[in-house]
């Protein structure tokens, strides 16, 4: 008789979650990945480091973020919806949790510089912010298309003292920004940490990022208990690489809660992808029959990624979490509905999770179902783009 499986524990020694994960990197980066694993293990077992991480998130990052009952949306959909308000964290999204952790780790490893990739710009802004706080030099790689879609975030990063490098290769979006950051890391790995923004890439990144983000789920679990809600029936979060989803799932992976990740239909690695190796990991990828990676397409730059973190690929395969896809056409109405009913303008990424609730309410979600929604980011960065879309539609 086997003991019940414990989900979202440490990956195995090769960095695998089931069949997924691993460390598929050039030899030039292998040593840095091995050293990072040792450094993180050491730091995460050091009470002083963990305490500093929590202290910085409290005094600088705005944690704990509240859980808000979304009463009007709940009535509208016939559900009981609670939102974990990562939009209220410093820099406007959950991304701050990971970058505070990784920049503290960078300092601990004695490296004076970080590089990062960014899609929507949220991770880039967060990295620039955390780097500024610690006096680390910071360079952010961003697809040229995204620098146009998110021009204000480029300026924000520059205000924070970071250098933003537009990436002109490939699809000029997040996937190419990751390629370019990896290439750059090869040249500077000795004194530079690659502050990867999601639960993806080579081991130990998927594990490190999930651990730093798991504060979301642990806080929410405690808060729902205090509110008398207990374990929710459903926990839902949007998924690009999957860091906010991993963070909130981590608090509920070993409960009865149904875990739902919502991908953009144009980048739905679980629904439409197949197993493969990209960016240092074996995971589910959108690719053709020859193993060439296809370009993702989403209204949301943060979900414009043809892969997904390896632990999500595993949770899907193990049937512990389900992954659904939402098309661009469902996203804008969801953003509008949450804004009008609750006074919260969500990020386009987050609006995918809201759209899934709207679609499933009354069908797969029975009336009265309790839902924890990870409100992963605020929509200020997307307001200009949404205005353009709505103008075009009218």
């Amino acid at each position, binding site marked *: 008789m086997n003991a019940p499986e414990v989900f979202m524990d440490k990956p195995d020694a090769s960095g695998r979650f089931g069949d997924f994960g691993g460390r598929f990197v050039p030899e030039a980066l292998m040593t840095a990945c091995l050293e990072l694993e040792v450094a993180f293990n050491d730091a995460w077992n050091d009470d002083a480091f963990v305490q500093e991480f929590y202290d910085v998130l409290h005094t600088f990052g705005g944690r704990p973020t509240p859980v808000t009952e979304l009463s009007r949306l709940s009535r509208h959909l016939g559900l009981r919806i609670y939102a974990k308000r990562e939009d209220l964290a410093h820099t406007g999204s959950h991304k701050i949790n990971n970058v505070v952790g990784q920049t503290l780790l960078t300092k601990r490893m004695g490296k004076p510089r970080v590089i990062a990739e960014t899609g929507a710009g949220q991770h880039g802004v967060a990295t620039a912010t955390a780097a500024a706080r610690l006096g680390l030099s910071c360079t952010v790689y961003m697809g040229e298309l995204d620098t146009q879609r998110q021009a204000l975030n480029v300026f924000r990063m520059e205000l924070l003292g970071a250098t933003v490098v537009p990436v002109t290769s490939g699809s000029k979006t997040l996937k190419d920004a990751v390629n370019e950051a990896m290439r750059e890391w090869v040249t500077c*790995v000795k004194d530079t940490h690659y502050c990867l923004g999601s639960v993806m890439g080579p081991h130990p990144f998927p594990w490190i990022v999930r651990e730093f983000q798991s504060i979301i789920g642990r806080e929410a679990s405690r808060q729902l208990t205090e509110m008398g809600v207990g374990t929710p029936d459903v926990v839902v979060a949007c998924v690009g690489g999957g860091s906010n989803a991993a963070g909130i799932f981590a608090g509920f992976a070993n409960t009865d809660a149904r875990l739902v990740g919502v991908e953009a239909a144009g980048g739905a690695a679980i629904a439409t992808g197949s197993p493969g190796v990209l960016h240092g990991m074996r995971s589910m990828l959108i690719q053709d029959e020859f193993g060439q990676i296809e370009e993702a397409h989403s209204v949301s730059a943060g979900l414009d990624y043809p892969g997904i973190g390896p632990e999500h690929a595993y949770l899907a395969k193990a049937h512990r979490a389900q992954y659904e896809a939402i098309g661009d056409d469902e996203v804008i109405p969801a953003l509008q509905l949450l804004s009008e009913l609750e006074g919260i303008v969500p990020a386009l990424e987050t609006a995918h999770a809201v759209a899934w609730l709207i679609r499933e309410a009354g069908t797969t979600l029975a009336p009265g179902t309790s839902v924890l929604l990870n409100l992963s980011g605020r929509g200020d960065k997307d307001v200009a783009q949404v205005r353009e879309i709505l103008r075009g539609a009218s």
Partner: protein
Amino acid sequence: MTGLEVTLRAVRHRGRRAFVPYFMAGTSNEWLRHVEAAANAGADAIEIGLPFSDPMMDGVVIQEAAKRSLDRGTTLASVVGELASVDVGVPLVVMTYYNVLLHGGLERSAAMLAQVNVRGAIVPDLPPEESSEWSSACAPHDLATIYLVAPSTPNERVAMVAQRTQGFCYAQGRMAVTGTTSEEGDGASVAAAIRAVSDVPVYVGIGVSTPEQAQRAASYSDGVIVGSALVRRILDGATPNDVEDFVRSFRRALDASHE
């Protein structure tokens, strides 16, 4: 010992420094003529790039070549089909990314490549720790797996990599992706670290773009690999004759270095 290593050790035994040019397969209708020209002009082995959409270890030149090749519809099977029509007389070694082999099916990919006289594979995103499945697929076909040692590789790891590599050991001359043009690199110390623990042939690549650099690299290694400098010329319209001249210039420099 793999057939590739037997051949390359024999090159060294003859007192010759190896020259290994790199070509991206499928960049034009003429690409096989380029490969033949290089063999005629004195290449000792030839690297054939199989294009991948996301070449993490490659700079802008190889990226451009990969894109051009993919846009022309190049696949593992199409390259194998074309290679079946030629016999250039020197070993071929493919360089590609793991996902391309994975999607061909590891066993099937290895078998197909071996059938057209490919003797080895360099897969830069497949470190020894992840390569057991690929190595098992290669073994029945005498297909060598060639590993890189980087300037960042610590000595104890150099020993492991040098022990695992087959055919030759790829000494990465610089901490950079392919196509770097900067002058002095780390090739000498990387090659020395490999030689301290192994007598496998050591070839220096990444950061070798001129005959002069090749000559210097040959003073501390068994050969050199030149990719982007050649591919750049091909993307700009070099003919097979131009390729022959290019290879001869390196051949002369390497032969002179040894006299």
